């Protein structure tokens, strides 16, 4: 091959690189065989505590749910795994039809008219929802419920920092103070603390000012609870991870994004549309691409290009497998087990549930002592306990209020607050073991 090119060495092909910078030394390890690589990676993996290795009650945005074997078996097929973005429609009908199925499934799950092909994750999807609401309304104030995940709040702040958008925190227990400048009201459903917000009231408050309601909704809760579309939400986003995607230390996940038909031209990310070919056969193409960066450049609705198509596929397989009955069953299992756990913990001396109201699978527990102490000692018994929310957010803007009806997690009573999550993965035996372990801290 070199002879065809009239050179003697491969190095000559790099002659355009200035001599003084060419072929630098590279301090990397020597190449390894597959066996050595496998051993080294297995060794690293073994230093981590896996969710499956003992009882786990940690949620807060990433959830431990059952994943049927077919999800991995199908999504790792090379034809899906090693395909590119489906720009060449004729060579990508599989991926394009999967995206169309995904758009249908997510629209139905959220009770919305349309959904896109997916975003990076739940947090970025919500941030893009905020930016879209500002475009749609041509307004630049954003009201954010104080019960939103602090992690999501940070990502919204990062996305808005260069956009002349003002963020305001609203206490969702009170009537939110919105006005004609407010582009959107941002709420999480169930909220970060696991509780169901007054969706009807919030929607009405928003719409009375021409403000859009932007929701971040847990797709698993949609197996049981009214979807945001039922209340008239304008933009619904979510973390797709509960739908068949492993926790994987935080990614890759997939962001869900749905809205009303009238706003589709302001949507970010890809859309697959159904059409016909020149012989009348049904087929699918990426459509409304004039919204996107490769056509519109600096005037695009977003800079997003590569998204998380493989995990949109995983979620689609998951939703297809569980279906109407299965998703409801999993959601109800989470609800039943979480309420069983909460009821038992509330009876322990020194523990209480500071919030009233309806929760799904997560709830806040006020503890008799520091949750970090509790967590450490539970870990010694191989129990991964809840998130310590009394300390973890000390660097964040104060979250004035906790939920629609309860008291604040920052009140004196609940400075020892822990956010627990119970899913279908937790057996009664595990829950009882958690209760037993917690009881040792009671006064």
């Amino acid at each position: 091959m070199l002879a065809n090119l009239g050179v003697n060495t491969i190095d000559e092909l790099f002659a355009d690189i200035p001599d003084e910078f060419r072929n630098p030394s590279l301090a990397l390890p020597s190449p390894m065989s597959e066996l050595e690589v496998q051993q080294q990676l297995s060794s690293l993996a073994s230093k981590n505590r896996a969710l499956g290795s003992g009882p786990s009650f940690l949620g807060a945005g990433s959830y431990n749910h059952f994943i049927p074997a077919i999800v991995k078996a199908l999504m790792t097929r090379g034809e899906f795994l090693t395909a590119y973005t489906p720009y060449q429609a004729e060579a990508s009908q599989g991926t394009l039809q999967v995206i169309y199925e995904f758009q249908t499934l997510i629209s139905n799950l959220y009770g919305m008219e349309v959904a896109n092909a997916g975003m990076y994750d739940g947090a970025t999807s919500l941030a893009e929802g905020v930016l879209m609401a500002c475009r749609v309304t041509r307004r630049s104030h954003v009201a954010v419920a104080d019960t939103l995940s602090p992690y999501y709040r940070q990502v919204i702040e990062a996305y808005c920092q260069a956009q002349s958008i003002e963020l305001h925190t609203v206490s969702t227990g009170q009537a939110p103070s919105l006005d004609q400048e407010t582009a959107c009201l941002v709420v999480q459903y169930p909220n970060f603390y696991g509780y169901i917000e007054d969706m009807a009231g919030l929607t009405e408050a928003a719409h009375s000012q021409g403000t859009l309601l932007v929701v971040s909704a847990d797709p698993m809760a949609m197996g049981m609870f009214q979807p945001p579309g039922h209340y008239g939400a304008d933009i619904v986003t979510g973390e797709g991870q509960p739908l068949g995607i492993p926790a994987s230390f935080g990614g890759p996940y997939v962001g869900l994004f749905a809205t009303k038909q009238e706003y589709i031209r302001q949507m970010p990310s890809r859309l697959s549309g159904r059409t016909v070919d020149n012989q009348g056969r049904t087929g699918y193409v990426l459509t409304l691409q004039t919204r996107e960066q490769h056509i519109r450049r600096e005037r695009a609705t977003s800079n997003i290009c590569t998204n998380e198509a493989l995990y949109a596929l995983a979620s689609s397989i998951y939703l297809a497998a569980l279906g109407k009955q299965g998703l409801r069953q999993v959601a109800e299992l989470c609800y039943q087990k979480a309420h069983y756990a909460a009821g038992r913990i509330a009876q322990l001396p020194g523990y209480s549930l500071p919030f009233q109201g309806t929760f799904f699978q997560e709830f806040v527990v006020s503890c008799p002592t520091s949750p970090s102490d509790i967590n450490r000692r539970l870990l010694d018994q191989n129990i991964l306990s809840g998130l310590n929310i009394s300390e973890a957010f000390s660097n964040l803007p104060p979250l004035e209020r906790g939920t629609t009806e309860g008291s604040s997690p920052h009140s004196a009573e609940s400075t020892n607050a822990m956010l627990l999550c119970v899913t279908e993965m937790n057996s009664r035996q595990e829950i009882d073991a958690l209760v037993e372990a917690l009881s040792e801290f009671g006064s």
Partner: protein
Amino acid sequence: MTSGGNRDTTKLLMERSVPGRVGAALPGSDVPTQSLPDPSLLRTELDLPEVSEPEVVQYFTALSQRNFSIDTHFYPLGSCTMKYNPKINDEVSFLPGFAGIHPLQPPETAQGALELLFRLQGFLGEITGMPGVGLSTLAGAHGELAGMLMMRAYHQARGDTHRHKVLIPDSAHGTNPASAAMAGFDVVTVVSDDQGNVDLKALRELAGEDLAGVMITLPSTLGLFDTGIVEVCQIIHEAGGLVYGDGANMNALLGRVKLGDLGFDVIHLNLHKTFSTPHGGGGPGSGPVCVANSLLPHLPAPVITRSGGEDSPIYGFSTPKQTIGKLSGFHGNFGVLVRAFTYILSFGAEGMSAISGNAVLNANYLMEALKDTYYLPYDRRCMHEAVFSANWQKARGASGLEIVKRLLDYGFHAPTLYFPMIVPEALMIEPTESETRETLDAFIQALKDIDREVTEDPELVRGAPYTTPVSRLDEATAARQPDLRWRATA
């Protein structure tokens, strides 16, 4: 041949639904029954399909067979680096100790994951010659956004608030101007010269006091190493700006040159291109950012740190002092980062320059073999990809679009088409290092055969493709009357 029954893909999931079917077996409840909330809070309708497990497997398997992929087809898609994705990388990413760890579990229970991330930061910093690396950005464009927000933070921290202009060459990816706009900058286009390099004279004229920086792709999207790159960096730095590097084309440079040495201040990498993580039909990606010392305080949160001695290191998270903030829910696309780490370990130091060497050799081999058949607008040594124009064929009756559709009939995925925009009828071909000479020769022959077809039977080429699951689709109607989901009434 089209499969029938469940394996027929013409029926969508909702059209397959039969009441009562479930595709996953779930347990009953083992706790005492708890009272349900107010019924008004509960949904009564849930429009999800009801299908059995075998149906799900048959349907999705049949769909997969309607795709081209690296595993089934040569995929010479320019600027996308569709190289072979080693299976070991997937396998290790699924280990329970990686796939089964929660992003918020105590760092002391995830030391193996944090060690991996810390070492990966080091590897990427070494490969690019940049002292700071952030792994939390989830795709190339996400890395660009982080990089441009850092550029903004850098100027603001110096009280330099009037720098609102970012220069972007006319050959750039669309994500560059879109990312610059999201970071609040005004985009100004810089032209390329007749060699495909950034026009230095034009650059000098645009580099004024309002300049925030420039976004450069190296090698450029023409597949060319910009021979004036050191001067580009000097001009921008003298004007007080910063140089952003789009690392989409890093496959050409692995082990050959470090962008930090050339004067770049911030770059992003596409691990789903250069570092072989599978593209998944459009993601997941991973777009780490690598920065010079001046931008270290602004890196997105979190970064991974090591404390304790060499013998008993402790890994953890930290937030840079003047961070641009948190751009994703957790710490990045960890499963992708595991795969890239594994890839780098497999290839090692020597392997890096072998990757770039073979990628550049393959691209030049194709360029040399095809340049008498297809017009080559920049006839000089290319790097990892070669950009042709189908102008000659268009004059004879078949456009670039029609030629690449015809290639599908020959069993090859299309090259990138009509990009970069500065080349009319552009065909951008990137073979990568992982294809054999036999495959390259077959591809060359196919393109020559199609060229002959353009002369002898242009109608044949214009009607392609014939062998794919569908032929040319009506995109205009799809955009005019968007059908974006299945509906019962449809």
